[in-house]
């Protein structure tokens, strides 16, 4: 089993923290993980992409081919479409619903949603409201992980353990909020 994810968003949105939780979960289940990140200039408000490969076998490549992603997991709608060439036929698109607008020619929201919905089974997640419901707007990333977890080859309990693992040093409140955000995302 090999599962390929393209993670995308805008620099500063926390794409890498999403990647970190999924990677931790996969490793807790004994799977191999390879994750290619983008650091440096593009992090300054530009489009960012990270690829993550989870596998029960040896993984050679950090990068994937077009049409090879099982999932595109995006922090915001426009970026979910930017790397759509990577999504395989029948692949899953999961994206936050709120646009991140820092360019003058950001497209019309409804048009964007219609493009996203033209892919079968797409999930448009209201991460902001669900995160607020969980206790902090900053937990939007975890809502997204929760939604993605519905199709990722990693168990719910493992994810909750990974969240605990990653956030413990930030205190019990933060763990609780992030777990709740995850569950809200998963049930959305």
């Amino acid at each position, binding site marked *: 089993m090999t599962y390929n994810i393209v993670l995308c968003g805008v620099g500063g949105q926390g794409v890498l923290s999403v990647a970190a939780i999924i990677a931790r979960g996969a490793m807790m289940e004994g799977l*191999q*993980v*390879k994750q290619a*990140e983008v650091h*440096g200039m593009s992090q300054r408000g530009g489009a960012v992409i990270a690829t993550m490969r989870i596998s029960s076998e040896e993984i050679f490549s*950090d990068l994937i081919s077009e049409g090879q992603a099982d999932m595109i997991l995006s922090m915001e709608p*426009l970026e979910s479409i930017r790397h759509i060439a990577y999504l395989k036929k029948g692949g899953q698109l999961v994206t936050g619903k709120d646009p991140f607008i*820092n360019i003058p020619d950001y497209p019309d929201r409804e048009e964007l949603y*219609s493009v996203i919905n033209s892919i079968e089974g797409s999930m448009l997640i209201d991460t902001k409201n669900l995160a607020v419901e969980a206790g902090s707007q900053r937990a939007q990333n975890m809502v997204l992980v929760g939604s993605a977890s519905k199709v990722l080859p990693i168990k719910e309990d493992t994810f909750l353990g990974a969240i605990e693992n990653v956030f413990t040093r930030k205190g019990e409140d933060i763990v609780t909020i992030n777990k709740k955000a995850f569950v809200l995302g998963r049930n959305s």
Partner: protein
Amino acid sequence: MSELVLLGDEAVAQGAIDAGLSIAYGYPGTPSTEIVEYLQDWKRKEDNSLIASWCSNEKTAYEAAVAVSMMGKRALVTMKHVGLNVAADAFMNSIGYTIHGGLVLAVADDPGMHSSQNEQDSRYYADFARTICLEPRNQQEAYEMTRDAFELSEKLHLPVLLKLTTRISHSRAVIKRGDVRPKNEFNPSKDRSHWTNLPFLSRQNYEDLWQQRPVLAEISESSDYNPLSINDRNKEVAVITTGLAYNYYKEAEKELENKPSHLHISFYPMPEDKIRKLAGSAARIIVIEEGYPFVERFLKGILPQAVQVDGKLNDVIPHLGEITPDICRKAMGLASFEKAEVKAFDMPGRPPQLCKGCPHTDSYKALNEVMAEYENPVVTSDIGCYTLGYFAPHNAIHSCLDMGAAVTMARGAAEAGAHPAVGVIGDSTFMHTGIQGLVDMLSAGNRVTLMILDNSITAMTGMQRTIVESSGIPEIVKGCGVDPAHVRTIVPLPKYHEENVKVIREEVEYDGVSVIIAQRACIHVVKAKYAKG
């Protein structure tokens, strides 16, 4: 031993630690920065005796490391590919030295130019210098090669170049640690002839280096880092890979029925016998290499040959950008994967830009207002976040060449007749190689205004501490000889806009060298401070 999840850069750092590293020097540069950051973290948590320091530039870093080797200890130097241009003088001239403590130069190339102005291939530098280059294909190998690099350096008395690329530096995987070697004791080399590049000594040193060639060739031929597999049943095509192209090829290879013979090269000088053996196995060789067509040119020469060589030189592989799994599949004649169908859509670009609240935005706004009052203003800029001033709405800069060029190019533009000629440079970049240009223009008596955008951090590469604090910069500038009356400090904030415009206007009209220091901390530094309380 223990397993860790590490970036390629971090695997290099861990490999160096486990090889008995004493001291590391570097200058921040994407994608190499995380090596020294990891070592600094290691120092805080595990081993306070380790030294891991940022230096003012790559040359100073490399030279300091050479002296560590002279004292018998192991040293690591880190930089990005273009940083080696700055350190090249020291690197090239250290080759004639008889390296004592292991000296490893980790250079991270950036094919695809994710965060760089070119995609030069550091293998050429190793070849130019006639030393060893190692290029890992995964994080585990990055760890192991770093250890081997130290061993080779001490055994062959050469500095060893470890070549990384963006995708290995910034990709994360599990690595297994090996045993830990003790550090070297302080043990200075006593032979002065090994460390003095006087022509009569150098002649002998280079002769010795030349005589060592068969030794390097022998290591290369027998190295596991250059694995060769021959398939006698495929006489049509053979493959040579370098760098990460190995991984992409291995993925594609699974789908090939009659697998080509394959040589992967990650130890240089190249294994010439293995290459000949591979060439004898098939009518055509496809060379898939990350970076320049280095191996391919070596294979091809200019004379007609029996074996057809396909690669970047005849456009079978794209010459620009990084190698990808798709490029590999195509070269091997494999079809693309079936993609998801999606409604057509006109995708707008989203280039990187200055952050909301960035001090540079306010600096450029004030500068632009003054520049608009002139017919032919020239604003030369430099390497850092402020290069993003090229983009709208700022459209504020005319040039960006390399580290330090904002200063020297402003001088050249001024002497060619430009007025105003303004150089815009960051605090860290000014300390890197900006000072020399300031000294030049002072000695020439130019009419130039230098703006130092001091955000008190090396921001673009991810918040590394600058080696001189903000309070030190006016003193350095004055110390170089700038008239103190024309060393002005402004605070780039919207509320001081009018004031700042006035200062810039005055200094631009001053008939001499003036320096305006725009001092306000990077917004991320401020945020981090608030987060900590």
